């Protein structure tokens, strides 16, 4: 299998989408900066948030790629599609939201917050269709995923890296622009319910994965 341009674009787009979502971290970075009137604090917070996000995404990516190295891609697709639809429905229908008390966090705690927030959001789940159909391989390795768990993990790292880089760049750009220029009044107008959109996207992607696999 070879590197698929489409799946690379999808990876980047998903990362950018997570970066865009205020609930996934850039807003926390801005809040920390505003509290102490320190841009440095905004900038320090972003890598911690990205690290937590990456850990959450990597977990899913690793499970999918390693499973994919032992099971047929059809089984992974069906199982993964079902998980996506189920999780998406839950996100769409449940009014429960992520609950975390506390604003004064160390960077380590902030990374943990980001990990939990991303996981509750199902941030890594959207990689399922990308990984099962997109045939992501690490550039320079031509033997593909089927050759074993070792390269599967390498693929998971690559996928996580690309995704998180996109997330980090977008979140960082927005955080700095909001902190320096725009101000948080924009939240009242522009904070669209991305979580609902995300839930619908999960269901759609899951359904598509199932349809293609069956």
């Amino acid at each position, binding site marked *: 299998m070879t590197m698929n341009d489409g799946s690379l674009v999808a990876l980047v787009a998903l990362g950018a989408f997570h970066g865009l979502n*205020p*609930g996934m971290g850039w*807003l*926390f970075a*801005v*809040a920390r900066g*505003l*509290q102490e*009137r320190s841009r440095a604090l905004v900038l320090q917070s972003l890598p911690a948030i990205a690290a937590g996000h990456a850990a959450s995404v990597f977990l899913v990516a690793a499970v999918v790629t390693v499973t994919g190295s032992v099971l047929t891609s059809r089984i992974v697709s069906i199982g993964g599609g079902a998980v996506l639809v189920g999780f998406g429905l839950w996100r769409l229908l449940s*009014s*429960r*939201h*992520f*609950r*975390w*008390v*506390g*604003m*004064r966090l160390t960077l380590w705690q902030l990374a943990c*917050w980001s990990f939990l927030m991303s996981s509750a959001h199902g941030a890594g789940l959207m990689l399922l269709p990308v990984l099962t159909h997109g045939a992501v391989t690490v550039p320079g390795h031509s033997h593909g995923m089927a050759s074993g768990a070792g390269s599967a993990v390498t693929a998971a790292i690559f996928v996580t890296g690309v995704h998180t880089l996109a997330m980090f760049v977008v979140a960082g750009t927005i955080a700095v622009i909001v902190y320096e220029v725009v101000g*948080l*009044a924009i*939240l*009242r*107008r522009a*904070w*669209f*319910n991305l*979580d*609902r959109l995300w839930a619908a996207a999960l269901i759609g992607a899951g359904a598509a994965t199932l349809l293609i696999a069956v």
Partner: protein
Amino acid sequence: MALWRPDPTFYPSPREAVNAPPETLAYIAAFDRSARRPDAIAVVDVDPDSTSYGSVVGWTDLPHTGDELHHFGWNACSSALCPNAPHPHVERRYLVVPGLRSSRIHILDVKDDPLKPSIVKVIEPEELAGRAGYSRPHTVHCGPDGLYVSALGGANGPGGRSGSVGREGSDGPGGIAVLDHDSFEVVGAWEADRGPQHLAYDFWWHLTQDVMVTSEWGTPSMIEDGVNAELLLGRKYGHALHFWDLRKRRHVQTVDLGDEHQMVLELRPAHDPTKTYGFAGVVVSVEDLSASVWMWYREDGEFKARKVITIPAEPAVSPRPTGPDRPPGAADLPPVIAPFGAVPPLVTDIDLSVDDRYLYVSCWGTGELKRYDVSDPFHPVEAGSVRIGGIVRRTPHPAAPDLPLAGGPQMVEVSRDGRRVYVTNSLYGSWDDQFYPDGVGAWAAKIDSGDGFTIDERFFPHGDDFRGLRPHQTRLQGGDASSDSYCYP
């Protein structure tokens, strides 16, 4: 159903909240002292351009009697925008209305018909007691992870009936219960470690600093049959502030204001989340009957409190006739304060404007609402005063100059833009009866707060407008100065 964009009544910062549009409706909790008729939420038209301005235009009876409505709050507020647990697409549409005497908590939906809120849920006292170990729910604040409700009593006390009076504290500790803000189920007691805290009343927080502040009144047996002179003179009512770690739910520090300062009630932290100070009102000093306002602040990691306002007692001289055959002069005082020969101001509520500039202080005993400029919180400067009601003065409302008024400015609510201040006149059933034994009456007033500070002559719902009930806290549609907390400066 979730919204696509944030509820328009949520503001990231107090700076933006002051630009909120003026409210058009006010919700006022009203209770029947005799407990024969249901308590109610009265809806008052506060739109000055409306023909029914200043009158009660809506009404919702509660399903039971004897609740004694007191304070209440919203299901969601600007804290929903906080970055740690954001949920900005919920709606501010439910009023959470505790019965201070019955321990029932009512959930009212104001969305479909704002003039006639519908009761969508009643949390029974057994649920509050069973899950959280509390009774007598009081203050409601919308937090990042749920609804926080303070409660004056524990679950296993003697029930506050006569006979338990004098055994102060036997029916505590009071504390804070957490309610799920979607299902409104009682989740449990908030405290992981309450330390020495036993008495409870109000609470609020410095949300971005993970600091909770709580105050002290008394347990149910200490208050429900009226103020107990023995307990008061024995300095048994609350006189301390408690500071907590909001995240770890642990008691961190007690700041004792001195046991002569009896009853530390309302807490008003600065709205600016980068500031770490706030104000607490003390009802009465047993040394000289004065009332006071304290400012808490943090210095070198420790919380401290300093008395920044003292309001002295007034001589019991009536400036106006107190009866048909009683000329101005020495006044009859109700038995509860007759031995002292003076009128205590009784600061029972304070409220801080959203821009943290003005602190409003109600003197329920002397019938006065004072405004202080607290731009420098260490040095408040009096910046206006209006007189209405009072134990001795009985100052009338300018709209009805021949009608002496009982009660005084009690609960204060300030509009988000800080221009309008609403007051109601009842304190707490049994206490009303002690300080205004000839009847506390029922009235609400509005004071325009700008360069001047004057009573609005067009706004005076009173008497039968409240259908025989006594008005307590006011909540303004869309939020007010004591309903929302902000995570961004």
